[in-house]
């Protein structure tokens, strides 16, 4: 019989070759009774547990979900019943906040469109975040779908098929310039009337998508590829961040800014609102077209 060191016995015990309760001799080579299953080695007990859990889960889950749904519906209905009536006079939301926006908005921001004044001047920090949400979304989709391997552009069979469609190409040829022009109008007119960067950019993006559907991506690619996308977003968002940083800094420290409201109603007025609308519009248009292009063919 061979004596073994403590270390070896410990190791053998850990590997289930050696049962401390039965053996005191320390002979590692003697055949051993079938060991109780070690859960760290064998999958079986955990597997059985998991199956049982799944079965219980699939039984209990619908019942719990139904109870939760009913409770939540009842609770929210009670809440809605308790809410101040929508659109009535003297609701709590009709307080000094919108009063100042409506009364002084034009004088303080220079924007005839009060909404533009609120989102790009009074609450510009929110909009700064919001325009970066779009950029974040575009980058996230790029991470998910951008395929780096087949960089070689190949003619899309659907593209060829679509291009033969006379109705589509003729209508698109007529509509796309008008749509894009209207988008630019909405974009530039954002501080004077309904519109602004988000809506104008969405219209331009829709025009670009229609063009891509009718005439294929190849022509658009000369102007709008991943590189130009990145540069456009970089310039627009950096301009947005830098100018708003300057404006916030001046506001917080009580300094005078070089941007003045100007004469309300003129196209070059309202300080930063017009350039910010353009920056937001460019980002929105790029994001919309970019998302379509990535989902359609895996690249921009």
């Amino acid at each position, binding site marked *: 019989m061979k004596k073994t060191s403590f270390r070896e016995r410990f190791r053998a015990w850990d590997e289930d070759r050696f049962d401390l309760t039965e053996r005191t001799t320390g002979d590692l080579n003697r055949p051993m009774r079938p060991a109780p299953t070690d859960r*760290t080695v064998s999958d079986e007990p955990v597997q059985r547990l998991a199956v049982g859990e799944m079965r219980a889960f699939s039984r209990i889950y619908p019942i719990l979900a139904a109870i939760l749904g009913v409770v939540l519906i009842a609770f929210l209905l009670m*809440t809605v019943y308790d809410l101040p009536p929508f659109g009535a006079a003297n609701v709590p939301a009709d*307080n000094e906040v919108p009063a100042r926006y409506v009364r002084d908005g034009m004088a303080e921001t220079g924007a005839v469109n009060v909404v533009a004044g609120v989102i790009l001047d009074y609450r510009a920090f*929110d909009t700064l975040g919001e325009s*970066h949400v779009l950029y974040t979304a575009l980058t996230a989709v790029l*991470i998910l779908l951008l395929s780096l391997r087949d960089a070689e552009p190949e003619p899309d069979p659907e593209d060829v098929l679509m291009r033969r469609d006379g109705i589509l190409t003729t209508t698109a040829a007529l509509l796309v310039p008008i749509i894009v022009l209207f988008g630019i109008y909405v974009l530039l007119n954002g501080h004077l009337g309904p519109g602004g960067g988000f809506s104008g950019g969405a219209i331009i993006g829709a025009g670009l998508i229609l063009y891509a559907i009718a005439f294929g991506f190849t022509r658009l690619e000369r102007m709008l590829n991943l590189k130009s996308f990145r540069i456009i977003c970089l310039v627009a968002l950096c301009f947005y961040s830098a100018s708003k940083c300057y404006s*916030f800094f001046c*506001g917080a420290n009580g300094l005078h800014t070089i941007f003045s409201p100007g004469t309300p109603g003129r196209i070059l007025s309202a300080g930063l609102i017009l350039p910010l609308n353009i920056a937001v519009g460019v980002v929105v248009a790029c994001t919309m077209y970019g998302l379509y292009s990535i989902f359609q063919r895996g690249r921009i």
Partner: protein
Amino acid sequence: MAFSVNVPLFAIVLCLVCSVVSSVLSGRAARRLSLALCAVVAVGMGMLLAYGMRTGVGTTYLMGHYPHPWGNELYFGVLEPLLLCAFSVVMGLCLLGGRKHLIEDLEDGKHRMYYVMSDLVLSALIALATTNDIFTGYVFIEICTISSCGLLMIRQIGRTTLASIRYMIFSLIGSGLFLLGVILLYAITGHLLMPNLKEAIGKLYASGQYRIVLLSAISLITVGLAIKSGLFPFHFWMPDTYGYATPASGGILSGLVSKGYIFFLLRVIFRVFGTDVFYRSGVSNILYVFGAIGIVVGSISALREKDVFRMIAYSSAAQIGYVYMGIGISPRLGVLAALFHILTHAITKPPLFLSAAQLSDTANGRLRANWRGAGHRNRIAALTFSICAFSMIGIPLTMGFVSKYRFAAAAFERTALIVPTLIVLALSTILNGWYFMRVIIALYLPVNRDDGAQRSALRKQGVYAISAIVFVLMNIVCGVAAEPLVLLLERGLGLL
């Protein structure tokens, strides 16, 4: 007004600009930019912390020319810069320590996008921790949600894709509930800025008007943020999300992102609802109960897990339970303990993921069964893992001990909660000890020297070793000299 008060504005804008600039840089340049950004933010927040300590008052910072209730604002005292300083240091160390696996896990052309996302996460954390406007909070919650999904799914294997779908769904439900709560608050108060909301809510509570709407707004906002941070029973996205992400992302998501949501919830409780209204509404008791159950269930799930990464992730669910239990106990000592635990977890969990990744490389697998003797081959990773595991268990000289002590001390503020809290703490310590010690013992089991395994030398580990050593030092220093940190947190809590 000192220059330091501009730090949060510059930090947020700098993060946004860096993230946009990163998209045109090479992966390596973007990585350096990101690390520099973390360092700059940490230094700036340190300056702001010094300023806050010197003046001893909270600062309201106008974002533009219009004060509340019209324009956006930031608010910060001592707590915000302290946490943000820690967060940016932890983020920098995660990016450093996870570099090897980032290079392995990511597709070649996509490295820069990783840093775009990590910069955005940092900007969202800063904005969430400093904003004085509840809607701005929502906007940056969106940025945080999307970019953390990006950090998760950039490792493109089936598991992470599945995990990010699940994470996205849970996270969006949370955002949706939060937004619903904000809408309800706006409908009954007409404000979005925190000071005005608090005043209006105080009046409404005193007059008894809109009682049901107020209660449902409080519960929707609390539940929304609780889902996003992974409180039981909404923790089922955690094991896959943290376990299969690339280790740096696992560290950032578990250590920082979920803490960002919790800290925002704390700010909402203190600065919007007011502690009186919140703690009388009964929602705090629900948080306590679910936190306590979460601790036990998370630990038991971790015990049953054989994959070490998923085990650490389940342990995160338990740690989130601790934080919510603390919030549920009381607005003073309970929240203090919760804040300390936020720091503890942010400093302890990322190195666990990072060293687990290093160890699983030497051990040829993620299962505990494969880890026998891995500690002899990669000593620095094993030592880091052990010390951080000790901290999670709550062994003295580490931060974990101080936070458990604080939770126990907080329980004595409410007589009814003493026994259940102590039972949960004891039970969880046993369970934590059980599942972590099992791994540590496996790590240090004797192995045959001639089995061909190479020992990784310290110098070969490079940046991982630096990040691991800094993490461990931070943990031990904060664990030994916890009293100043607690005083700092207490002072910050007074300014919240």
